[in-house]
């Protein structure tokens, strides 16, 4: 308790709060610009954090991460282009909602879902970090493989219309993910002599190529009548209504927040998987799954509360073991390293003020994010008033810049172009894009965990380890259910 008070004192001063606020604003900007990711935003703040004391440095990065996870929803809803990889599922219902003439509602619900997701994972983090960290250790390669299999089962519900086309798209995604050095042996595969491909296709240019670039190409071919929202009545959405909406979906909010936190805790899973998994599970639990993808608030709530709560989850292994849960926490550990603080299992014991500072700044960042975005909603909505012939080149330029900035090389811009054309072709032939992305994300993780698992023991270990067995059974059930409900909704549409 004394420690907490001491930390409150360290955090609650003008300097730290200003730093947090700047981080949150920077995060919202980085998160909302397609082509710029939260990871890049945090990497940019890394040098600044060196000259600050460790608590402030971490607060700055925390602000960027929390702000960014919520900022992704702005472009995801308004333009249908995920501002950051972890906002992909946000586009599924956010964008249709905007097209239905409810942009204010989409932003408000997304924002409050992000807020509740953050708070929920923050509470879990404070009270259960050591316990959950121990639980995460139970996840060996067998369990990770089973979990990824569960992720694959989402392909069925992400395939609007043809399941076959969805499966083909998912398969193609996995194929593209194989390009690059073999994750375990380092042998180059399908690189065709390009040393730039040794690390595989970078995820960011692939994602914005598929979603943003292809979308822009299509918009040029068939200009939408206007992005302008005719019905200005719905521009703003009162807070009371948002709270009521959230209350009605309380189960969904909590479930998605829990999914996000748990996925965040597992090493290397992170926001993008949390975002999609939670959307998929919400759809499966929903009484009206057919409304998903057409602008239902539940889809948006699931997607946004999960990606924000995964941030809190990722802090669990970092604080409990000094093992980073994602790229951003890896950078936070790097910042601590520069300050001479060795992150490890004794971090909570040796640096209580710092650790509590992390907790408090996480909560503060969530509140600041809520305030900044609430004030900013009207400004964000102006994006839709920018004439189309200005908007497209601007977004295109940002995509190119962002792809370049990933690794400071032109090669990734060509990757953007290539996947833009692939995405355009897929859309034109009615292949769904989300399964493709899912394949690219899950492919390498399925492969390396499976190969680690079989080199560590017999194949039967997948079924003799209880957690792994349960997850595999769940994954298979989820696949069967996915196929079943996909068939059902197709039949309904045929009548």
């Amino acid at each position, binding site marked *: 308790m004394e420690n907490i008070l001491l930390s409150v004192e360290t955090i609650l001063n003008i300097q730290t709060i200003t730093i947090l606020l700047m981080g949150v604003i920077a995060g919202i900007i980085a998160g909302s610009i397609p082509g710029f990711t939260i990871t890049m935003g945090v*990497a940019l703040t890394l040098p600044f954090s060196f000259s600050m004391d460790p608590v402030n440095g971490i607060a700055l990065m925390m602000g960027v991460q929390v702000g960014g996870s919520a900022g992704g929803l702005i472009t995801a809803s308004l333009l249908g282009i995920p501002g950051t990889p972890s906002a992909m599922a946000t586009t599924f219902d956010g964008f249709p909602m905007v097209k239905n003439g409810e942009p204010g509602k989409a932003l408000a619900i997304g924002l409050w879902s992000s807020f509740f997701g953050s708070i929920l994972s923050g509470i879990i983090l404070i009270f259960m970090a050591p316990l959950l960290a121990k639980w995460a250790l139970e*996840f060996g390669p067998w369990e990770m493989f089973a979990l990824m299999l569960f992720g694959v089962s989402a392909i069925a519900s992400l395939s609007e219309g043809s399941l076959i086309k969805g499966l083909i798209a998912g398969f193609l995604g996995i194929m593209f993910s194989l390009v690059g050095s073999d994750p375990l042996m380092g042998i180059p595969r399908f690189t065709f002599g390009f040393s730039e491909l040794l*690390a595989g296709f970078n995820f960011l240019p692939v994602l914005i190529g598929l979603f943003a670039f292809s979308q822009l190409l299509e918009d040029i071919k068939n200009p939408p009548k206007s992005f302008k929202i005719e019905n200005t009545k719905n521009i703003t959405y009162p807070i009371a209504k948002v709270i009521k909406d959230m209350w009605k979906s309380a189960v969904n909010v909590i479930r998605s927040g829990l999914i996000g936190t748990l996925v965040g805790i597992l090493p290397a899973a992170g926001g993008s998987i949390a975002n999609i998994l939670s959307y998929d599970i919400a759809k499966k639990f929903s009484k009206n799954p057919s409304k998903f993808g057409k602008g239902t608030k539940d889809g948006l709530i699931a997607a946004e509360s999960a990606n924000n709560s995964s941030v809190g989850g990722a802090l669990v292994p970092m604080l409990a073991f000094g093992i980073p849960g994602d790229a951003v926490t890896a950078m936070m550990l790097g910042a601590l390293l520069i300050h001479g603080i060795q992150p490890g299992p004794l971090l909570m014991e040796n640096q209580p003020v710092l650790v509590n500072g992390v907790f408090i700044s996480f909560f503060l960042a969530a509140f600041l994010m809520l305030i900044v975005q609430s004030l900013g909603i009207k400004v964000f909505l102006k994006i839709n008033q920018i004439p189309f012939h200005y908007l497209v080149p601007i977004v295109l330029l940002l995509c190119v810049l962002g792809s370049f900035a990933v690794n400071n090389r032109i090669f990734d811009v060509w990757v953007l172009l290539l996947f833009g054309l692939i995405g355009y072709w897929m859309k034109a032939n009615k292949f769904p894009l989300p399964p493709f992305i899912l394949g690219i994300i899950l492919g390498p993780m399925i492969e*390396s965990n499976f190969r680690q698992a079989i080199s560590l023991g017999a194949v039967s270990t997948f079924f003799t380890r209880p957690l792994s067995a349960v997850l595999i059974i769940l994954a298979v059930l989820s696949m069967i259910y996915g196929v079943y409900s996909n068939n059902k909704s197709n039949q309904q549409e045929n009548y």
Partner: protein
Amino acid sequence: MKRIMRVWLICLMTVVGLSACGMDSQSDGDAQANNYPNESIQIVVPWDAGGDTDAINRLIAEELEKILDADIVVKNVAGGSGVVGAQQVLNANNDGYTLLSIHDSVAMSQLTGQSDFGYFDFEPISLMTSTYDAVATHPDSPWDSMEEVVKAAKENPGEISYAASIGSTSQLEPALIETAADIDFNIVGYDGTAKRMKAVVGNDVDLGGVSVIAGKDYLENDQMKLLGYTGEERSEVLPELPTLKEQGIDAVSATNRGLVAPRDTPDEIIQKLSDALEEVANSESFKTKMAEMGTKVNYKGTEEYAAFLEKNEEDMKNSLEKSGLLEE
């Protein structure tokens, strides 16, 4: 038709725009060493921001900035076990304004066939630090020393699993032990230090290398047992941990971090940089920071470093040859 034309036009414009970005402005080839440096110097770190190599190089950059009175920019170009970033410097201007941070992975990548260039496709400047590891295992495992591990491995060849990031120095570590003790491990690949550590703490794998600083914490928290130190002499951080050599395994494994420049960078510039780096290595603040990270400051000037790299490559080659990892 018109619409399709427009789509292609946009693509074409992007392509033209891109190729314009690709053309680097040719900077003056004969940069005068006398007024070097008069613009900012870029250190390419071919690994992600936040790792050990990144942290050490940022600390070097901070000190170097004061000594050379120039801006030093650390640029992370990650991927392919360091090959992607190294490739960039390989083709960079040799005017002393683009430097590369390297460690043993450069030779490792070449010897295992992941890249077609090695140490001597660059101009060595200085060796800065050497970091040794501790061999760790889960507290539930039956062994309390490397001697016991060797004995168990002789009884059951290829049974004991050893986590390693393939293509990096953590792969060399088990390979060196295998050759020195004449045993066989089941080397399991993990991409990245974080996943490797998790595998040891979670008891997924039998053995794995950890940094001594992290290892000390895990040891105190009863989450790991440490079996041996890969240095020549015992570590100051964990003086009670015996070296591999003391336990009859004639192997020393380290990550040796230094800086190199593109081929044919003028000697005067290399000399200037090497002198400045010596000052960095001798500065108290740098020494303290390195001690906190469990890393040994191990400065070697240009000529000494070149000789060191030659020997290092030779040793690595022998070990990889014996464990069958060498690219034929």
